[in-house]
């Protein structure tokens, strides 16, 4: 596991020194993170890095996970899709299931933090326990709330407004709320297995393992098998591009324990691919970080054709590897890509295909976009900036004013 000092060569000693000063201001407080899964998905990934690094800084950060059966996670997945604006049937019994599991978790969990930091909707109802604690409660929303299903939104809003503060990833995700709303972008860890530099031999080995040729351009989308990532659109894009340039497509996804829909989507993707030898559909276990890293580094162009996104951290991962990216202008993606400067933004299958063709045919342009993208990520989307924002957030709850002298 990387230590904080390991980041000095990437972001500079001055930035690390600043983090240490800030951490000193949190001395004596316990930060308790709570989410719904320890493995898979962006939230678990961030917490896996963030919690030890806060510890390295001297901040007492803990992480607990709520429990839930398959029925609970089916409901939370429905909520997730509904909050993203997808048309899903929500039954009254779904709310009952959610409340039952929340009450069970409330009975079983030890809520001990000075700051209780709840991630996403799954553990949100634990807020009912707030009157029994002296803690500051913060709700961290990692998903896009811009066009939610109104029933699910109103159900959650009652909980959110009981918190001391809420955190969103992008301005467009926020809603009209009576509690303070902070804005913190997520981040990637440049030293994690998914993002660290890799020797060429490791990359070659991964390509060999999955039967991917190095003789023609590789277009890659890394994402969960999820309708909202538009895997079918990705295949259509690829078929449009291949009319002009011989290339191959990699669709690689991992699973998360709180996502029961993945298998169904995967089967439909395979059907759509129709045994095309140039379409590589890779089902990767949640621990396949080196493989994902290698696939991204081996790619000629990286695609993120999501219909909806929380933030779209796979874009930051690709840009950190200085790769040219074509991505949908949804969720947090426009914060990561300035169109034609650090990547290309698109909205349609045809536009995406056009962008990829441009990049394949103009390697110097592609290289420039990738280089700019990497610098943008270094300045704004690395874990050290995220650590800093979280520490500021924990401090901010104690002060109502705009200028705080510590």
């Amino acid at each position, binding site marked *: 596991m990387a230590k904080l000092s390991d980041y000095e060569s990437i972001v500079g*000693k001055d930035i690390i020194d600043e983090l240490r000063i800030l951490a000193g201001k949190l001395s004596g407080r316990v930060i308790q993170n709570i989410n719904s899964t320890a493995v898979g998905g962006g939230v678990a990934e961030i917490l896996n890095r963030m919690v030890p690094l806060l510890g390295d800084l001297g901040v007492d950060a803990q992480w607990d996970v709520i429990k839930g059966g398959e029925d609970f996670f089916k409901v939370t997945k429905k909520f997730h899709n509904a909050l993203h604006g997808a048309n899903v049937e929500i039954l009254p019994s779904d709310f009952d299931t959610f409340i039952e599991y929340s009450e069970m978790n409330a009975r079983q969990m030890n809520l001990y933090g000075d700051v209780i930091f709840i991630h996403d909707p799954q553990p949100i109802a634990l807020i009912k326990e707030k009157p029994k604690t002296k803690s500051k409660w913060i709700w961290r929303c990692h998903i896009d709330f811009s066009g939610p299903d109104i029933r699910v939104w109103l159900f959650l809003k009652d909980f959110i407004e009981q918190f001391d503060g809420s955190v969103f990833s992008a301005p467009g995700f*926020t809603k*009209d709320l009576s509690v303070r709303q902070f804005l913190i972008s997520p981040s990637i860890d440049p030293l994690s297995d998914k993002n660290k530099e890799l020797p060429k031999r490791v990359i070659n080995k991964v390509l060999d393992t999955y039967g991917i040729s190095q003789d023609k351009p590789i277009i890659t989308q890394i994402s969960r098998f999820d309708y909202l990532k538009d895997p079918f659109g990705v295949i259509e894009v690829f078929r449009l591009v291949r009319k002009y340039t011989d290339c191959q497509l990699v669709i690689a996804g991992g699973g998360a324990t709180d996502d029961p829909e993945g298998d169904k989507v995967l089967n439909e993707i395979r059907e759509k691919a129709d045994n095309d030898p140039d379409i590589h559909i890779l089902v990767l276990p949640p621990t396949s970080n080196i493989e994902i890293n290698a696939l991204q580094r081996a790619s000629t162009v990286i695609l993120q054709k999501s219909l909806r996104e929380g933030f779209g951290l796979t874009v930051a991962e690709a840009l950190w590897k200085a790769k040219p990216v074509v991505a949908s202008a949804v969720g947090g993606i426009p914060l990561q890509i300035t169109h034609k400067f650090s990547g290309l933004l698109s909205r349609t299958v045809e536009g995406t295909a056009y962008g990829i063709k441009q990049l394949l045919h103009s390697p110097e342009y592609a290289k420039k976009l990738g280089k700019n993208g990497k610098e943008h990520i270094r*300045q704004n989307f690395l874990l050290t900036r995220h650590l800093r*924002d979280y520490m*500021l957030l924990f401090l*901010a709850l104690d*002060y109502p004013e*705009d200028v705080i002298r510590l």
Partner: protein
Amino acid sequence: MGLRKKAKVPFRFYTRLNLLELTGKKARDLEELLNITREISGAVIYYHTHHFLQQQQYLSPEPPNDFAYWVSNVLRESELGEKLASINLCEFNSIIAVRDKIVEVIQKDPALKREPLRTAPQGEEFTFKKSITFIFPTPYSANNMYEFIEILKKITVNSIYFHVFEARLRSEKSIGDFCNWIENSISDVELAHKITNLDPYTYTLEGLRANIIKIIEESLVDNKSRTFLRCGVLI
């Protein structure tokens, strides 16, 4: 001025970090932009006129403020956008004066009288945010110009940002902290004026660091040469 000449008062380096908070206010057209801008706090104006300096450190030039960017690129009111982009932030000693200028420019523009007003597409409204600023001391302080330059070379850009931009506008001083110290504690008025004359809004933060160091070092060399010549004549 000598490199090791002791300052009357040491220069204590502070730094500042920002956390963003949403105000819950959104504008869809020019009228809403104007009405909300009239009432919002300095912290909101500060964010929308200064965040680009830190977020896009490697990009130069950048859109000078969010008001100009939104009016030009979302409302497609290019003339007004250009006028807003041309507001010279160096001319203002307080953030409220900047707010008043933005209000004045929008208020006078014919685009405000357009019927119907151009509106932003859904999802592209102007979202008013504010910077919550945390200010805290660093372990560094300088007793003379030598120490000052050495610290300036290694201090975080956030510290440079604080002493150049934040201290001036938020505390309504006419000059930044560096110039103030060089003028009053080192008693080098000429050097202080050279640094005051930099337009900090036209540099990246690293560029600004490099330029301040360069001006100080050149000034020291000039002084040294003059001293040498004087000595030469005397000898």
